[in-house]
């Protein structure tokens, strides 16, 4: 009967009321056409943190923190991997940052604009460091269906401009809307504290400038200036600790515990940490890795894959309760230690060995303090002969090695590795490598070659050097 009633209703609605009203049902009940500005800020700060993870989940194999449980896995062996997912996530985030800035401009909210610019700089730098040339000036608006690629150097300059503009905006007063502060702030990185955003902007600037160490543009003074305005303690770090459910590295560790094998530590890493290579057990290792069934730490050689079944603790994995991989572990974007190691490197390159050595030691100390290593273990490590080399004994290799240890899982380490030509002591090509030299870049992802093919620059191989790595 309801059918008949409904049909009568339909007929009535046509004849008595207007047909127009009957047809007016095309307003999407599921989604709005504009978004709240704080919802965009939440999304972009959250995703920026996750993007660091997504990129780090790839680069960690190249710098041999991690190794695949599968023999000759494409990532381990420098085979071409399709990073469409990571690429899409980065651009999805930058698109939301673009909208965030637009809304900030419309509302006269300079704080939001400033944060948007710095977030954009962080994400664009991840793109720049993996691929070089990429769409930016023509991207995000939907106006162009096949955005043109900006040159890598153009993108580099755009990152620097974004940083400067972001700092400028954040230094202005009178933002029409202020970013809410406190525990429930939609700013998951700095909880609405603009002073910290300015420090992060400078920290990113220092990171980008030191990346030019192989080029003629390397400018130590500019880096020191940026470092002075960057972090002064581990309390200033840029990180997120609010997740949907858990820190994504914890997701990796939990999945591995559930036999979806991943998050295996590389043999090179374990050997460097447990004293095999350098004669001292690094006190940070127990806070990172699981013990094997043999009661020790064992890594897996990159490219080799598992030896046994892979599920009976014959090797070490990321721990589900580890410092970087517990459910609530902070996910670091840029840290104070990194600044110290940049300072050490630049001072070393400018022959200020004392400043270099002090910064080098402070970098290690800060990282250990952050991880909660007790003072005795920390100082024992700092005083070990392989570390306490004194200003005269300091080498670039030592600075890079300790930076590599302190910035565990961070994508920037791959930038270092390339600048340093993988000069870490004992660092070798993976087993079953499909290339005869170290990996230098990523090829463009399938989603770009198939959808924007005409604009995608030709890349023949993952061993081609990016412009700053020549």
């Amino acid at each position: 009967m309801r059918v008949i009633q409904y049909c009568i209703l339909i007929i009535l609605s046509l004849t008595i009321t207007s047909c127009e009203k009957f047809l007016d049902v095309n307003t999407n009940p599921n989604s709005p056409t504009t978004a709240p500005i704080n919802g965009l800020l939440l999304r972009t700060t959250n995703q920026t943190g996750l993007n660091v993870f997504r990129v780090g989940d790839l680069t960690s194999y190249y710098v041999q923190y991690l190794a695949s449980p599968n023999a000759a896995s494409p990532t381990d062996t420098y085979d071409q991997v399709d990073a469409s997912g990571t690429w899409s996530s980065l651009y999805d985030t930058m698109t939301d940052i673009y909208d965030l800035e637009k809304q900030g401009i419309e509302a006269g909210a300079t704080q939001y604009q400033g944060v948007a610019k710095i977030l954009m700089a962080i994400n664009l730098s991840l793109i720049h460091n993996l691929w070089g040339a990429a769409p930016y000036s023509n991207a995000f608006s939907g106006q162009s269906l096949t955005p043109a690629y900006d040159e890598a150097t153009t993108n580099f300059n755009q990152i620097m401009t974004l940083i400067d503009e972001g700092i400028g905006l954040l230094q202005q007063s009178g933002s029409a809307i202020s970013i809410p502060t406190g525990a429930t702030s939609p700013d998951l990185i700095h909880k609405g504290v603009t002073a910290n955003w300015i420090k992060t902007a400078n920290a990113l600037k220092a990171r980008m400038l030191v990346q030019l160490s192989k080029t003629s543009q390397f400018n130590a003074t500019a880096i020191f200036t940026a470092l002075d305005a960057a972090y002064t303690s581990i309390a200033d770090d840029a990180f997120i600790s609010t997740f949907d459910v858990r820190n994504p590295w914890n997701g990796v560790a939990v999945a591995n515990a559930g036999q979806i094998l991943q998050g295996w530590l590389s043999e090179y890493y374990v050997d460097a940490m447990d004293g095999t290579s350098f004669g001292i057990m690094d006190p940070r290792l127990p806070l990172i890795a699981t013990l094997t069934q043999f009661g020790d730490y064992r890594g897996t050689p990159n490219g080799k894959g598992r030896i046994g079944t892979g599920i009976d603790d014959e090797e070490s994995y990321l721990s589900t309760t580890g410092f970087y991989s517990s459910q609530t572990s902070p996910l670091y974007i840029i840290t104070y230690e990194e600044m110290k190691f940049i300072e050490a490197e630049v001072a070393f390159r400018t022959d200020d060995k004392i400043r270099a050595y002090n910064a080098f030691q402070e970098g290690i100390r800060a990282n250990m303090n952050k991880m909660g290593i007790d003072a005795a273990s920390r100082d024992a490590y700092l005083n070990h002969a392989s570390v306490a080399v004194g200003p005269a004994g300091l080498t670039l290799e030592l600075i890079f090695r300790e930076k590599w240890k302190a910035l565990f899982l961070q994508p920037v380490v791959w930038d270092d590795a390339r600048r340093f030509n993988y000069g870490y002591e004992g660092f070798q090509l993976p087993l079953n490598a499909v290339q005869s030299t170290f990996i230098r870049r990523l090829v463009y992802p399938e989603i770009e070659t198939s959808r924007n093919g005409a604009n995608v620059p030709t890349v023949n191989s993952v061993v081609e050097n990016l412009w700053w790595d020549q």
Partner: protein
Amino acid sequence: MKKCMYAWMLFLLSMPMIVFSQARQITGTVRDANGIPLASVSVVEKGTNTGTVTDANGAFSINVSRANATLVFSYVGMESQELVLGTNNNYDVSLSATGELSEVVVTALGIRKEKRELGYSAQEISGEALIQSKQTNIVNALRGQVAGVQINSGGGAPGQGSRIIIRGVKSLSPGKNNQPLFVIDGIIMDNSTITGGDAQASLRGMSNRAADINPDDVESISVLRGGAATALYGQAGSNGVVLITTKSAKAGKMRVSFTSTYGIDEVNKFPDVQSVYTQGYRGVYDPATIFTNWGPTVEEAKAIDPTHPDKLFHNYERGYIQGNQFRNSLTLSGGTENALLTSSFSHFKQNGVIPNSDYQNTSVRVGGQFKSGTLFKFSPSLNFINSGGYRVNSERYNEILSYWSPRWDVMDYIKEDGTMKGYRDNAVYGTYVNKFKDNVNRLIGSVAATFSPFSWFDLDYRAGIDYYSDFRRHAAPGPRGLAGERNFGDNGLGFVNEFRISNRILTSNVMGSFKKDWGEKFNTVLRLGNDVRAIKFSRLTSRGSELDIPTLLTINNSKVRSTDQHEEDYRIVSAYGDLSLGLNNYLFLNVTGRNDWSSSLAKENNSFFYPSVSLSYIFTDHFLKPDWLSFGKLRASWAEVGKDTDPYETNAYYISNVLTSSNQVTWTRGNSRGDQSLKPERTNTIELGTELRAMNNRIGLDFTWYKLNSRDQIIPVFISPTSGYTSVITNAGEVENKGIEIVLNGSPIKKQDFSWDVTLNFSRNRNKVISIVEGLKEIVVGNWFGYVGSTATMKYIPGYPVGNIYGTSVQRYYGSKADDGMTVDNSLPLVIASTGSNRGFPVRDLTQRILGNSQPDWTGGISNNFTYKNLRLSFLFETQQGQDRYNQLGNYQAAFGTAPFTIDRNDTKVFDGVLPDGTTNTQEVWMGQGVGPDGRDYTDGYYRNVYRGITENFVEDASWVRLRNLSLSYQLPSKFLRTNVIKDASITFTGNNLLLWTDFSGFDPDASSFNSGSNVDAFTGFAYPAVRSYLFSINLNF
């Protein structure tokens, strides 16, 4: 003696009538070609309103008024016959099946028209022909029977959806429906394959919703192909219309019909594998490695590992079992001329060839027809269906089978404690614990009423509802924490996903028909109507993962939970008119017009009008016809059909997510950008055709040529995520389809006891993308994974046909010849590398080139029907020729060393081809892995380093010819029944998919990796394999 008396009395009584009004009573029996009495045959005295129907025994009795009266016998599915009365008063009449002169076909909106009047092609398939094949899915039952219709079953899974395309793909939009409208007894029914809300659903062979229909309920199916045929349905019919007419009751005694069918199913074709080399890597035996077949020979492995079996398993044959199916259906009908009732019940259960896959369908239908004289007619109908089952993700099943070394028995999958056995993920165990089930409850109801106050006017009203709820559940337990337990990877830490889908289509159609005969020569019919349709779709998805109690499958037991909701409303209102003009019963003109107002377009663009004109000319009735030609007709039509878009595509939206740990809502720009200014798509159709019959209708030809141009396509174009969206919806592009359809039928033998009928159909469709969105070079429709860059992609590129498959190829040596960068020139030699780690091997060309096309060059079918006394034999050959498919299984087989051709791994050879400088290649290379006999390190070897990365190697000719169906039935002679309870009985043996001829190397290439609702049809390999079925059925009529 008594009979004689009655006859005499009858004669005496009728005497005065003969004298005074020349009336007399004519009696007789109507039978079909097999001599079986036909009930409910309409018997009308021509030119009068006098009429009757035959009773259950085929007997009739009618009083005729004129001296040399003519009786017209007509019956659906049978050739109508005219009988000029002589002096006899008793006649035996035999009617033969359709395909003859005065065939009545169901056309748009259920209007029955004589086929001769139609200015477009229409083909009707009788229920009998459909039932013969015993197909479980009504769409599959049409296979090979109708010209211009291409049907591909997604695969052989129980209840799996099938895809039907009429006259080629018209919408370039990758996600848009290109399948015809399904109408059952005048009510639009949903035939979608719902996969939304979960990526799994698109891989689990979900049913197309027409599969819910019980094939035993179907009286006939009419397929309307051209624009003019479907113009009255408006935009919904722009892809053609499939009209299903269900069986209705006939007056007289109650009839009971019972049919029971049991069948077994088995995979009809397996891929070949090599059985020499076992598990290992670079020739070294390793019983735990992922490399299933890159180890030493079986003999060498046995020397190392005494537990190694003597023979490798054939994983694909081992991983499939015998399936079975069982259907029972019961129909009861009866009533009087003024009140008829029919009801049917059916139950179907099928167990699939992949373990733990099944499907069941229970259907109950009630229908009636009530009359109040000729003034008023009322027909209600209600069909309730419950269907669904455990659906297996065949893509994943075959993929995991491919990772499983044939050194191990895949069927040895479970330990005593119920956990997985084996050295890695076991596919069979996966189907046992990782389960997806759907449960559909569906109600299709309608009321139709006809009011005929005047002889020149009828008013028809029809209202209907098609409502279903689809409850889906995908769940898997988590690891139980037992010692030595191995968790099935896809289960993660356990999860439960629930999907609640509902869809409701309401239709209302009112139509007035005005008929007028303007003297002897000229007649007109004008129809005016209004059509309203409202669709409401709703989906609620709830997911829970990380189960606390590993085996308790409820969301209440999950640590991480999320829910999302999707609601959709769509409405369309239409007004239409249809004017038919007939001249001298040999020239017919039909003009239609329809205006749609759609809710899915912005107000300025939501009204669209489109007309159609069609002309039918029976020249054999106009001119003196030659003796050999019994019937000749020419027809021509032109039509335009508009098509709107899906709801909510006129805008861009923001999507929310919640951060569970802090309960904060995040917002992100949605992936799709809509457009306020979207306007309707337009398809123009021109169709020309002829129907010829010769030699007393013993041979017939139906020829059709058509051309369709679909303009202003509404396309969601997949674009680079750097643009800020991943797809944009816009009006652009044109696609052209043109083709021919030929139906030839003949009755080479037509004798009392023996007859042979043959029908042949042939269709060819050519399509071409004329243009796409400005500024865009190509539209990616879909892609399918292949190792190291060998992913195959389906793209639309202007100037090229729909269905092109693109990918990497072997480099050809062009020398001074120009390379168009698009095609592969097979006449040129291959380029062999002279330097680098792959020297001596063919060079991979990374340019995306055309490697094949997924659309057939032509399709055809030949059906044969033999009857000899009570025996009936029919068989149907079907073919699709010239289409290609990307074989993903082949790609995996090459990568893992299971492919038969990888057996040459210990050979040294010289590849035919030239070096990059053009000189002939003479470099000897070893085909294996590791260090070769020449001392060179071949690392992973040719097949992994080169071969698997070349898409061209896996795009194969997927043409096939198959014996689609063979059916032998025997009608038990009544003398054997020895009872009055059973009126007739027959037994039938049916074989489906019995023989297959194809060069394709994988499973039957008919199956597709994409669901039946998808336009992506170029990829197969891991799809649910097609099955061969043997069915035995018994039919009893009481």
